[in-house]
């Protein structure tokens, strides 16, 4: 787009990019090969990823290199070690990992192998959400190709490094994108997140040291190792370096997945990349980084898309997935849809989340269909404060509470109008008609 350097999506643009021959002709596995030939100490690989400042792209933004460094010293801990690649991409608005898996699976595999090398993991499990059939098939085919070429399995490229990569399928639970929920699911159980401590690096898959990383985070690794931390930091902002894949969806001219530097203004993403709000309409609200980050009003569209700026604006970077709402959109309906989502996805362990997600959904649903009550807004706020922060085993409770608080903060008047008028004041014909035909 605007002359920003890009690297993440370069190979994806090539025909047949998912195939080994095309991928290799365009650099795939070169970094791994050099690493193995040079015998670079694993600790150095961890160090460069740490210095790069790469932050997890799965939503939490935890520094990746730091997470890697939590793995215990193999000299003192002889348990098997695992990498789990979190390909459970289920955060509403988020569709970027899918692009990488479908179009550059070898890029992901190389990243996983380098990560496994750095952390001395003996195997990587790629946990793909069950609905992503193409991603799963492409990755499995890529593993098979890579194995045949000596790039996966025993003594990779003739070195002393062995690593297996296994594909694993989820079955439709957002909570399995939470790292400990993922591990429970991978072990063949209900995806109930585990309390922390212990942390995965201490006790993860089958009680062994494990690191769970998002697809896009892993995808960045070969580039960082190849070009160094300083190179990585030329992109993005100081506390949020690098490029990210921004999936822009909703009321825009050109929805899509775009590569941009962190710190780019949301306005530039919206207008230059996605063609602006569609149909010549005005912007009403936007969600910066997936549904759990909480919407922001149009007035804040100039906020830089990085972790600190969005946090200061009262939202979060999350997965960097922008959802755009135009002037005809009803934020109460949007809130109901998201509240329904968290109600559906709560695993049910924690009292606040199990009951609170359902309760919030019920309140928003009532308000949306014109049956709101005078105390509903206060109750929403009060419930959301009971559900967060950090009161539960995992952050799904927070993820449900934050959007609810955001809509009350920024669009209280619209909620009040629904309640006072006993109907949606926008009376979006499509929304209402469809509402009547479709059970909640």
């Amino acid at each position, binding site marked *: 787009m605007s002359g920003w350097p890009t690297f993440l999506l370069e190979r994806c643009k090539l025909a047949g990019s998912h195939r080994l021959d095309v991928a290799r002709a365009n650099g795939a596995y070169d970094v791994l090969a050099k690493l193995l030939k040079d015998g670079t100490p694993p600790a150095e690989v961890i160090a460069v990823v740490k210095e790069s400042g790469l932050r997890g792209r799965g939503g939490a933004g935890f520094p990746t290199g730091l997470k890697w460094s939590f793995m215990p010293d193999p000299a003192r801990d002889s348990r098997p070690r695992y990498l789990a690649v979190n390909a459970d991409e289920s955060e509403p608005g988020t569709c970027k990992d899918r692009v990488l898996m479908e179009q550059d699976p070898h890029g992901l595999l190389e990243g996983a192998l380098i990560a496994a090398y750095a952390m001395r993991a003996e195997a990587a499990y790629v946990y793909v959400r069950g609905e992503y059939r193409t991603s799963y098939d492409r990755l499995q085919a890529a593993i098979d190709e890579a194995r045949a070429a000596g790039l996966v399995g025993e003594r990779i490229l003739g070195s002393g490094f062995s690593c297996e990569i296994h594909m694993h399928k989820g079955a439709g*639970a957002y909570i399995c994108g939470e790292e400990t929920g993922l591990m429970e699911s991978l072990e063949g159980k*209900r995806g109930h997140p585990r*309390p922390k*401590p212990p942390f995965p690096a201490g006790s993860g898959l089958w009680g062994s040291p494990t690191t769970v990383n998002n697809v896009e985070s892993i995808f960045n690794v070969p580039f960082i190792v190849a070009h160094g931390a300083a190179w990585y930091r030329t992109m993005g902002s100081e506390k949020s370096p690098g490029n990210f894949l921004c999936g822009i969806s909703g009321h825009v001219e050109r929805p899509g997945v775009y590569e941009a530097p962190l710190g780019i203004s949301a306005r530039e993403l919206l207008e230059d990349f996605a063609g602006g709000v569609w149909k010549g309409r005005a912007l009403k609200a936007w969600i910066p980084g997936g549904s759990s980050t909480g919407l922001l009003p149009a007035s804040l569209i100039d906020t830089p898309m990085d972790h600190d700026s969005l946090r200061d604006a009262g939202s979060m970077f999350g997965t960097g997935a922008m959802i755009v709402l135009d002037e005809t959109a009803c934020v109460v309906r949007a809130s109901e849809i998201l509240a329904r989502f968290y*109600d*559906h*996805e*709560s*695993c*049910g*362990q*924690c*009292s*606040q989340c*199990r*009951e*609170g*997600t*359902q*309760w919030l959904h*019920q*309140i928003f649903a*009532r308000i949306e269909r014109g049956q709101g*009550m005078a*105390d*509903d807004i206060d*109750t929403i706020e*009060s419930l959301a404060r*009971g559900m967060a922060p950090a*009161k*539960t*085993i995992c952050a799904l409770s927070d993820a449900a509470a934050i959007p609810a608080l955001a809509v009350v903060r920024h669009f209280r008047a619209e909620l009040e109008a629904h309640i006072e008028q006993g109907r949606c004041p926008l009376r979006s014909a499509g929304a209402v008609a469809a509402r009547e035909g479709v059970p909640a």
Partner: protein
Amino acid sequence: MTRIVLNGREVEADPKRPLIDACRAHGQHVPTYCYHPGLTPVGSCRICQVEVVQGEMPARVVVACRTPVVEGMVVDTEAPKAHETRRECLEFLLKNHPLDCPICDKAGECDLQDFSFAEGQGEGRTHEPRRELAKRKSLGDVIVLDQERCILCSRCVRFFEDVTKKPQLAVAERGAQSIISTFADRPLEGNYQGNIADLCPVGALTLKKFRFQARVWNLFKRASTCAECSRGCSTTVEVLRDGEVKRFRPRYNERVNKWWMCDVGRFAYDGANVPDRLAGAVVRGHSGLEHTDVADALDSVRDVLLANRARALVVSPFVTVEEGEALLALAKKIEVEPVFVSPKPNGLEDDLLHTGDPCPNRRGLEQLGFRAKSAEEVLALLGECECAVLVGERVAALIGDGLRELPAAVRLIVLDCTALDVPAVSVCLGLATYVERAGHWVNVDGLRGPLGAARRAPDGVRDTRALLADIERRLSAAEVEA
């Protein structure tokens, strides 16, 4: 042991156990639902909130059941933030929980009631319809499940996994639709089902046998010991105002049964509610057994014993150690070997508690010098004597129908809870059941278990040892005269 500061006092805490255990060990109450010391902690209910300060970190509110004990940790179980989070938790739990208290068996011993009263708010704010689930789901012969009342603490699930080692219940579905369920409506199996009703903090899992039987605040409770096998699990006997035993429940005993008891023992209380109690005494007269004064009956006992030199003494394994000592004295007096009737193994032994030996005081009596004889051996013994004293609760039943066939020349003196009406019986005296008297039994491992009187025996029933003493006194007096 690790040292922590708990509510202002420096105390010792076991670093192998979670913080909640240290709080309880030092009498600082923290509410819990999902946590139970006998089960794997999960930290899901979120109610055991306490405030901790560790090192330089700011104070934070955590769940005590999943918080490791750390040297120097400062713990406040009464911090306002802890109470606030507990209050919020309770509001969430009461959002769907049906207000069934007026018809719920758990009322009066319900942790949701108790903690709501202590920490909750008076009024709920929900306008939403409560979820509708199965309210009377039979889980077999023992348990009925009300899924609406369930707060998904998962103790019942973990009980079968952790304690009986065979999962039978699972959490099914997800989120607010979660339910507790068996597979394909199968009933629960095994001899330990009743424990999940004890574990359930609310009235979701209740005992079919106790359903609507009594309000728990009308039950008088006394510590006791189970009679159904030689494990001698510690129990509580619970008696309703009218004197009927309504419930046996396990009582925590570190060395014997921990928190559990088997269903055979749990539901044996019918055996304590014996109809046709003998309150007083009967003697054989012209038209059969006739009621008489206890004093006159004791005279008859003396007469029978003095008139017959070939004697025997057989006691039931329900007699206590204390009664056994008194019986030894009598045995010596009447010059017989002390014997107890030893029941056959019942085949119910398992890996958990039940020993398969339906004999509450085998070791106690053996230690005193009583000789075990099977029912057949006892009958053979009785057949060869002229008179016998049979003493103890259920002694007649344990010896069995063979008593009916004894030649009329054998004279039986029976001290039991009911009268034994067979031709051989000369005199019967009524005794207290094991829920009506104090004393001790000794279990299979040599551990003493106390009995307690949860109710009075019917009027006219006299204390066993007093009766034995009176018999001895009469015999002694006769010797003097002789």
